[in-house]
């Protein structure tokens, strides 16, 4: 008995502390950016975002406690069931869902809306962890990666159908897990190269990209001049590359939606329209940039308070931090995320259980992706992709999902 109580407290304190700091910081920031300073409003009115967020935080703590109390084997055992259940819940949205901000991704229950997509992140992580854990014994290596990609492709397709591109992209973050579990690095490199050549093609034009590809081909042909097999492969890759470039613009024009295309164009500087398409990105940079080194002080932000920054409590909440806490505050926040992600990776590697390791990499990938894309978007490094900042952004589904995601890992690590 004594032994049991002792082990149940062997949770990783560092991760929990990061979690508490980020959630607390999140609430204070939501309070600052959503409080109407010009009107006396009751603190306990449920129309206030900060009051609602307090409820979300309370329920999240409750969820975390429950997870820490129940047996972690439950997650390993039922992971596939949980994954399938969450996919069904997402499909249910098509029948009973509500559309918010153009995305049909919400189920409304009374005053609150939940977003099943958010929960799919941890269910997918669980399912993939189980898949890799068991896949080793199956030894069917050939089909391994096809199957692994299917696990993330299914939720991506469902979410794309709900017109929530940002959330769909999040599932690509599991590629980090795949890489750790043996996916060849070439796929990553080719992926990065494809993104780079796409941006280059859109920014300049096809001719430039083809010239670059041709130069690369010449280089590799020279390097591989003694090996006819490699030369053949080089030529095949070159032809694929040229075709990819030629289809980039066509794909860009026809696959992406207008507003997405506009966001990319503004980021690339192809469109200059500070009051139109550029507005959000510009105002976001102005808010953060105006914070200076020390910031304007808590509750003293003007840009976020006066609605210049859109969605200042959810996707653009980092603007309020940047404006009120300046470079110092921003630096602390990105440091916290970085430390948290590295801590998760370190703990994952320490754990001898492959299930826990895989789950940990899935978690690290999801947090990293959210953190990088969200902050990159607010400071004008990336196009505007609407995904929340983990633990900080306002929203029940997001906070609950990230809490579950993190605390399952904390619980799994307990053993």
């Amino acid at each position, binding site marked *: 008995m004594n032994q049991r109580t002792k082990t149940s407290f062997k949770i990783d304190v560092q991760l929990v502390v990061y979690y508490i700091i980020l959630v607390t910081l999140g609430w204070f920031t939501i309070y600052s950016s959503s409080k109407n*300073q*010009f009107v006396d409003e009751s603190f306990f009115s449920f129309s206030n975002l900060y009051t609602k967020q307090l409820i979300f935080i309370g329920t999240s703590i409750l969820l975390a406690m429950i997870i820490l109390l129940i047996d972690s084997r439950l997650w390993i055992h039922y992971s596939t069931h949980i994954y399938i259940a969450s996919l069904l819940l997402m499909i249910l949205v098509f029948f009973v869902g509500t559309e918010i901000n153009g995305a049909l991704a919400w189920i409304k229950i009374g005053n609150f809306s939940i977003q099943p997509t958010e929960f799919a992140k941890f269910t997918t992580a669980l399912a993939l962890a189980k898949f890799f854990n068991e896949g080793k014994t199956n030894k069917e290596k050939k089909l391994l990666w096809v199957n692994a990609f299917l696990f993330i492709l299914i939720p991506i397709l469902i979410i794309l159908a709900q017109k929530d591109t940002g959330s769909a992209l999040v599932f690509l973050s599991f590629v*980090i897990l795949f*890489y*750790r*579990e*043996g996916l060849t*690095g070439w796929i990553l490199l080719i992926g990065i190269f494809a993104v780079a050549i796409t941006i280059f093609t859109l920014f300049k034009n096809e001719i430039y990209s083809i010239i670059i590809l041709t130069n690369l081909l010449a280089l590799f042909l020279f390097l591989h001049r003694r090996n006819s097999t490699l030369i053949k492969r080089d030529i095949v890759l070159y032809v694929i590359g040229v075709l990819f470039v030629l289809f980039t613009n066509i794909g860009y024009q026809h696959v992406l939606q207008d507003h997405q295309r506009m966001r990319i164009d503004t980021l690339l500087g192809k469109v200059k329209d500070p009051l139109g398409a550029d507005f959000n990105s510009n*105002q976001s*940079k*102005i*808010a*953060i*940039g*105006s*914070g*200076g*080194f020390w910031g304007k002080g808590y509750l*003293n932000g*003007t*840009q976020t*308070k*006066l*609605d*210049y920054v859109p969605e200042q409590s959810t996707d653009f909440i980092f603007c309020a931090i*940047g*404006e009120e806490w*300046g*470079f110092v505050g*921003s*630096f602390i926040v*990105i*440091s916290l995320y*970085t430390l948290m*992600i*590295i801590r998760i*990776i370190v703990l*994952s*590697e320490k754990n001898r259980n492959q299930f826990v390791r895989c789950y940990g*990499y899935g978690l*690290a990938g999801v947090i*990293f992706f959210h953190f*990088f894309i969200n*902050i*990159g978007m607010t*400071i*004008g*490094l990336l196009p505007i992709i609407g995904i929340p900042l983990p633990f900080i952004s306002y929203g029940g589904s997001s906070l609950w999902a990230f809490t579950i995601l993190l605390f399952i890992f904390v619980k799994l690590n307990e053993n």
Partner: protein
Amino acid sequence: MSQLLQKRQYTIIGIVLVTFIVLAFRLFYLQVIDDSFRQSADRNALRKIIEHPARGLIYDRNDSLLVYNDAAYDLMVVPNELRAFDTLELCRVLNIDKKELMKRIEKAMRWSKMLPSLVAQQMSKEDYGYLQEKLHRFPGFFVQNRTLRHYPHPIAAHILGYVGEVSREQIEKDPYYQMGDYIGLSGIEKAYENELRGTKGIRVVLVDVHNRERGSYKDGSEDVTPIQGVSLWSTLDLELQKYGEELMHNKRGSIVAIEPETGEILCIVSMPSYDPNLLVGNVRSKNYGILSSDEVNFPLFNRALMARYPPGSTFKLANGLIALQEGIVTSTTIYPCPGGYRMGSHTIKCHHAGSTNLYNAIQISCNTYFCKAFYNILSNRSKYPTIQKAYAAWEQHVNRLGFGVKFDSDLPYELKGFIPDTTYFDKKYNRAWNGNTVVSMGIGQGEASVTPLQMANFMAIIANKGFYYKPHVIKAIGSKNSPNTRFQKRYETGIKPEYFDAIIEGMDMAVIGGTARSAKIDGIRIIGKTGTAQNPHGRDHSVFVSIAPKESPKIAVFVLVENGGYGSTVAAPIASLITEFYINREVKRKDLEKRIKEFQ
């Protein structure tokens, strides 16, 4: 294999760290290095609203209000903040057509896209109330409280002056001003602009993305309260000014009255005049057009400061003083008068015959005496080797008596009249001239011209026996007890005080039994001198100068009535009535008053 894969954690941690560094550098660039965002943020969210101070009030010397302020509401526009709005409705409220509205907005855009410009002046309280309620539907527009000048008595228009919109040049010269601001353009309003305009206030308000004001910035800690302009106390006597304007009603000409011992101007009348309330606010430009195009009356022309009148016989007093100072005559020197001053074939007539000393000469305004005296000043070869040197000495005396020079006091647009210099005559007569060539200047005819202000100041010099303080219209600034220090310097004329006694006696005799009998007042010893300034364009101008009381002068007066005939006909009675009114605060001679008021 599994060992190899384990190393991949470092690649992944590396990617995380590189991302961290990229974000940190980008944040450092945005927040610390590039400070343009801070300015953009302020432009976004802060609106600085200028709070216009009320201009300073102007009182007369007895604390009666001459100028005060009325509330008015101006519609302003910030072009950059304009969005689509209901032009028809705005036009209806402002009572202008769409074309005019667009014209005004374009003008505002040309001036500045960021700063507010005036769209409509002085809306009525009703229009203001109506618009204020619907202002959220007109983004970019806001209403500014302003004050407008108001004049309880429609007098002293030229001296009080008027305010109008600043010009582009004035804005460029002085950063205090913004387009649509008012600035003093003439009179006291111009001379004391810096005192009267006050200090502008600033209200910093937060403006949200929908151009709605959301409250004050930092609880108003960066706001600046406007400070009303400083009040001024004029030297003018409201009642006297009013009386002077009544007397000059239907006439053309000027009255200037000065308190000799201070140089304070008690009243300064220029007729025809106008009601100063006509040049206020949105009726100003229309009325200004009417007034400035009136080429019969020239109501905007301030005769007291700008007109060039031949001084006439009153100038004989100056020549008498100079002759005494130069030692040409003494008070008892007698010049025979054969009914005129002969120079070869030409004679300057005199309306009497007999011998005169200086007293008689002033009393009866003898032309011969002053021609001779003037001729002798210019022909004094023992002192001055050439006519040029002698004339230059005379000119210098005249200048020190205040003629041919500007006072540069607090009366804008003052002109200096005209006293020809030696070069003028050298050119005119090809250097061949002598005392007789220019002798008509000795009796105030000929080329010389003076302004009413200069003549009145000359009377003050006589009253003071040799010195003056610059004539001015503002005696105290800020409070009645803080005197205007600009005019405390005493100017000496260089003429000995005793020489003034003869002049004063002569002027006394002129009133008792000479040309100036019509100026006599029971109970007040007034001394004076008539003048009849020859007018090439018509009937002579009636001129009179006076000082009273003789024993301790309180008021020196100059009166000129254009085409009024002899000095004694109308100018002398006016000077007399002004003096009586000022000293007794009432006029007993109602018949004379009535006759003068009716005189045209």
